[in-house]
Structure formats: C-alpha cells, structure tokens
C-alpha cells in the first residue's frame, strides 16, 4: 500500500541558523521555467525536452514567530534582506544532520530574500513574519 509522508514537523535552517522552533509553516517549491518547444507539424503543445533545458525557479516560504530577543528571529533575519543565503530543510530534525531516503535534506543555495516585515502586529495575537525566498539552486541529499 502506498504511503504518503505528511510534512508536519520539518526542521530548517536559514543562513545556518536553526529556526525550527519558531516556524509554523514551510513550503519549498522546486520548479523549472516552462519553456515551450512546440513546432510546426505538431498536434499538441509541448514543453521542455528529454533533458532539462530551462532554469530552476525555486521558492521557499516560511512563517516564523517574531521574537526580538538576542539570537532569535529578528536578529537572525533582518540582515538577510537584499542578499542571498542558504536554506536547508528536512522532514525531520534527524534528516538535517543525517539525510536518508526517508528523511531527505534539501539545500537551497543562493536564495534571495527581498523583503521582511519587522513589525507585523495585531492586538491580542502573537506576531509572526512570513518570508519568501526566491531563486537559488536546489539540491537533494539522501545520504
């Protein structure tokens, strides 16, 4: 019977900083630009080829609880705006240190953070920040 891994408790680092215990959601999207290769004579649209010919176009979105304490969310994120950094994420904490086929480690190198909301406050609610990293090269490690 086929099984599906439900990504409910991943571990992640941003710029080598482990912010797992501040994260409430994380979405890593692995994508290649879709290039049309349809030509005269074909009867259906076609995209790509038998080997990859387009550019990776990855995104990583994460929601973190905001914290202004030393070495916490704000201190770790603020200086990353406008630069490239490296993100790692795995379905389990163990996978970050020792990747395996059931707990692969994904590394997004050169991901760009264009914006951050240092203040995002609502009365009576815990403050959170949502960060979207774009670009970068994704690799997957299983050992």
């Amino acid at each position, binding site marked *: 019977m086929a099984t599906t891994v439900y990504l409910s408790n991943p571990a992640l680092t941003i*710029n080598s*900083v482990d*912010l797992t215990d501040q994260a409430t959601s994380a979405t890593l999207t692995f994508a290649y630009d879709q290039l049309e290769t349809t030509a005269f004579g074909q009867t259906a649209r076609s995209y790509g080829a038998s080997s990859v010919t387009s550019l990776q176009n990855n995104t990583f979105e994460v929601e973190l609880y905001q914290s202004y304490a*030393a*070495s916490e969310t704000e201190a*770790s994120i603020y*200086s990353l705006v406008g630069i490239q*950094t490296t993100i*790692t994420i795995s379905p389990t904490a163990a996978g970050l240190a020792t990747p395996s086929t059931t707990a692969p480690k994904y590394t997004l190198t050169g991901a760009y953070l264009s914006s951050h909301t240092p203040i995002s406050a609502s009365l009576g609610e815990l403050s959170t920040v949502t960060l979207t990293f774009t670009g970068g090269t994704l690799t997957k490690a299983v050992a």
Partner: protein
Amino acid sequence: MATYIVTSDRLAGFKRGDEIQASDIDGNIEHLLEAGHISPQASKKSAKTKDTDTAKE
C-alpha cells in the same frame, strides 16, 4: 583562517562555545556575526620567553 566562537544555541550542528571556521558552515559569516550567533575568536598571543638569567661571572 579566522576562528569564531559560537555564542548562541541556534547555529545548526554546533553548541554554544564551539570553535568554528568559516568553512565549517554554509551561512554568511558577516550576518552571523551581526546576528550574534558567533563572535571572533580573540587571537592568543604567543608566549614569549624572557631570559631572566642575570648570573654574573
């Protein structure tokens, strides 16, 4: 190569107090310094010997 001391509990794979070098991590060193996760290891001065033998013939 510069050596740094880990000063927070959040640096992946390291404990507070560990000594690391830039090549040990994927992160940007400048931003880890700014964020307070590491600090430069103060260079230790080499111990110099001083000849205090003042014995006279």
